[in-house]
């Protein structure tokens, strides 16, 4: 998928579009209002003339001298912007026509409606005019058709000039606006660049650095806060990782030291076959422990990092627990511990992984149960979750140990590290499996019993390596 358009370009474009729209509207309104203004002026002048002509016509006497009449019309026209006038009587005889132009070409609408005056535009070969026509109707008391015309070329010329300047200004305005918005956006993004710069300078050993949410504009404080949260999580993960590496080194050191010492001592002088054999057997125990540790750590790494997709199937947990009991039965009997399961449960999960998780809890429980007592597994369905409880009576685990119980290599009693209790990864593995299934695990411990509870969500259809 292509990268989304840059914010700067996007904002600049948006601003430019808005500016263009506003300027165009402005220009259009300006032009229209100027035109309107001229039109109104023209009409006013035309009416003024026609209003002056009409009383004159009414006062006309048939006997008056034609030259004298013309003179009086000429007088009316003086003082206006070269208007033209033509008057014909009802029978079509020309009474007056301005000497400059014969207005006979002007089309006279043959309307019989009681329309007294029309104003319209007219043009001949050379010039543009606005004309007023007062028709001679039968009803009207003035039996003349009056045509008054004013040249609008001067206005047209003015408007054309004005338009050129106006649209030039509009174009310039749009360009200016685009440039300004580009600069403004660039300036506005400065805090963003600043924070980016800050972030880019955080290296892996400065994970304790935090961004100050008050240093950035309010819109970015959420980003700063989320980024800080991310830093905290990473810091923690990094810590865990380095602690884990240290733990591994420590855990490996002991068996390797044993191996080295034992072997060196054995080789330091000639010994009997039996003694050599004894050394080899002892070595093998250490090797087994190492292999086991490696296998467990690999399993943990795979589960934690979700390297392989988890294959889900419908599992009858009651049956699974019975199988586990089958497996542990003899050993439990040896320890004089009984096993009991309560409830039933159907669950969609990875059978092998969950078996392993529960198995670790069960073997732990059996190990810590006093003789003659019972390990109880309770299977229960809550609303949209399931609960698997493994509980055993016995000595309580001190509360200071509880939060660390699921940590890798954590042992309640450090001196028991080298006994047959395995790699110290069992509970970490259980937790990892439960979390890979989207669930959680909790432990409580008191005088009566120690209890591990696994809570798993029921809908797990889409869980995989994503």
């Amino acid at each position: 998928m292509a990268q989304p358009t840059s914010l700067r370009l996007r904002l600049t474009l948006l601003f430019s579009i808005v500016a263009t729209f506003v300027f165009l509207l402005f220009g259009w309104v300006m032009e229209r209002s100027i035109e309107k203004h001229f039109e109104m002026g023209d009409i006013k002048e035309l009416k003024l003339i026609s209003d002056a002509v009409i009383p004159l016509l009414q006062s006309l006497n048939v006997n008056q001298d034609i030259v004298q009449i013309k003179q009086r019309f000429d007088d009316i026209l003086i003082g206006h912007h070269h208007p033209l006038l033509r008057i014909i009587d009802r029978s079509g005889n020309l009474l007056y026509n301005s000497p400059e132009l014969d207005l006979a070409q002007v089309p006279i609408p043959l309307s019989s409606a009681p329309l007294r005056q029309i104003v319209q535009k007219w043009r001949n070969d050379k010039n543009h005019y606005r004309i007023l026509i007062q028709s001679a109707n039968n009803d009207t008391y003035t039996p003349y058709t009056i045509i008054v015309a004013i040249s609008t070329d001067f206005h047209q010329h003015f408007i054309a000039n004005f338009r050129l300047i106006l649209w030039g200004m509009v174009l310039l305005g749009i360009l200016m606006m685009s440039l300004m918005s580009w600069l403004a956006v660039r300036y506005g993004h400065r805090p963003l660049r600043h924070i980016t710069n800050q972030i880019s300078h955080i290296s892996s050993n400065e994970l304790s650095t935090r961004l100050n949410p008050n240093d950035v504009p309010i819109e970015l404080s959420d980003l700063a806060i989320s980024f800080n949260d991310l830093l905290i999580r990473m810091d923690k993960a990094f810590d865990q990782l380095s602690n884990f590496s240290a733990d591994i080194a420590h855990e490996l050191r002991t068996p390797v030291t044993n191996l080295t010492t034992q072997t060196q001592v054995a080789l330091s002088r000639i010994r009997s076959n039996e003694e050599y054999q004894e050394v080899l057997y002892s070595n093998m125990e250490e090797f087994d422990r190492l292999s086991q540790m490696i296998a467990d750590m690999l399993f943990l790494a795979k589960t934690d990092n979700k390297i392989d997709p988890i294959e889900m199937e419908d599992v009858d947990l009651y049956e699974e627990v019975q199988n586990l009991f089958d497996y542990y039965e003899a050993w439990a009997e040896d320890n004089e511990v009984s096993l009991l399961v309560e409830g039933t449960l159907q669950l969609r999960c990875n059978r092998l992984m969950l078996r392993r998780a529960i198995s670790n809890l069960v073997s732990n429980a059996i190990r810590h149960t006093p003789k003659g007592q019972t390990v109880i597994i309770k299977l229960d369905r809550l609303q949209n979750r399931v609960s698997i409880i493994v509980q055993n009576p016995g000595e309580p685990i001190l509360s200071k140990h509880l939060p660390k119980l699921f940590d890798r290599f954590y042992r309640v009693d450090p001196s028991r590290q080298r006994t047959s209790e395995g790699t110290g990864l069992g509970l970490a593995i259980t937790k990892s499996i439960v979390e890979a299934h989207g669930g959680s695990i909790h432990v409580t411990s008191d005088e009566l019993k120690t209890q591990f509870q696994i809570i798993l969500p029921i809908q797990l259809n889409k869980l995989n390596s994503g």
Partner: protein
Amino acid sequence: MKILIVEDEVKTGEYLRQGLSEAGFVVDLVNNGLDGYHHAMTEHYDLVILDVMLPDLDGWHILKSLREADKTMPVLFLTARDSIEDKVKGLELGADDYLVKPFAFSELLARVRTIIRRGTKTPRDNVLSIADLELDLTRHRVIRAQQRINLTAKEFLLLELLISHKGEVLPRSLIASQVWDMNFDSDTNVIDVAIRRLRSKIDDDFENKLIHTVRGMGYMLDTADKI
């Protein structure tokens, strides 16, 4: 039975050869992929043990070329990489089994024997026996020296596993996975307890002990005290 080992790690290869030779196999060892491929193409082997990571020609390549040349001998992969993808890839290419390093030699030996036995396809008997012990699979009955012995279902399975691998050392992990379907190592001595119980029923009342502990490796069912 002739086995070819293709393993670039010199020490691992040497010990595998020694171990398998002493277990009665004829073993050829080569240290690189090209030699391995050449040997496998020109000579007859009952099994090829193939390391996946080889410097020149990796195990998958060799296997693919072998199968394309219609060489159908069983192949067992050894690998340091443990991911399902790798497993699936190996099995899809026609590998017969897959073992992740580090592995126990007894585990390898057990798997090698299983694969080779699979190849020979001996018909399965309904009655398995060793010395005066008889295991009737159809009637689910165990008889030793004409005496009927009552076993639980799991004990019967355990005995069946031991007796069908008589003379072979079975590691605890293999027993756990075959009898109880537990495919992970438990940090308990569950298997030892189970064996002890089986022993008390099978061996305790008899002079001739059949179940032997092979220290550090596992258990074995055999007539004579070999260890």
